[in-house]
């Protein structure tokens, strides 16, 4: 079956949102973030995560960032709540 690109993007967005909530104290109202704008809270958090982990800081869901987020890791957050 072909991959639905829209569905893939939504899954990636859910993944990063959950990751940032779990490990980077990202606060949401429980609703999925559907659109990103530059300097929005989630983009700033992605940049924070990329900087901490040692990735290129783009604020975007590039392949390196997605790959890193899918690796097993410690459950202690990387930033204090």
């Amino acid at each position, binding site marked *: 079956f072909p991959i639905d690109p829209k569905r893939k993007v939504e899954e990636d967005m859910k993944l990063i949102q959950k990751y940032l909530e779990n490990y980077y104290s990202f606060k949401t109202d429980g609703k999925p973030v559907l659109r990103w704008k530059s300097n929005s809270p989630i983009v700033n958090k992605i940049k924070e995560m990329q900087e901490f*982990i040692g990735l290129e800081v783009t604020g975007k869901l590039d392949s390196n960032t997605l790959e890193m987020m*899918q*690796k097993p890791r*410690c*459950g202690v957050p990387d930033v204090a709540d």
Partner: protein
Amino acid sequence: FSTFAGQPKWGKKNLTYRILNYTPDMAQVDVDAAIKKAFTVWSNVIPLTFTRVDRADADILISFAARVHNDFNPFDGPGGTVAHAYAPGNGIGGDAHFDEDEDWTKGSQGSNLFFVAAHEFGHSLGLFHSRHPDSLMYPVYRHFDFKTFRLHQDDINGIQYLYGNQTLL
């Protein structure tokens, strides 16, 4: 390296630990050995000792659990979070929990218990995550070479910042 907010650390030199249960993934003797070796990583560089006990009042309680396990930080099934531990303190402080849904091993397949335990015990002693990708306290699991494993200088600097070095014994 970095420490938890407020820099919590143990106020005594001789700490005790208790293994509350075992993973079925490994022989018990191998779990015991991995845990002991993980503590040795730290006791080699700081003036603290770690003694295994079966008393309920051990400083560091070690357990394997899946999903919800009575600490408001449920595990997430296979992959993702493999373990977590708490900063030094009373009660749950210092305790280390390992996700039973992972495949725990003493080798290079799955999640190596020694490596993860050594990282978690860093938290039990007061270290927070490091940004240095080669350090033990880097948050992302990586495969490593048993033969060449050494505690990274960043980890040594961090733990000795909290407890001093071995020569102070």
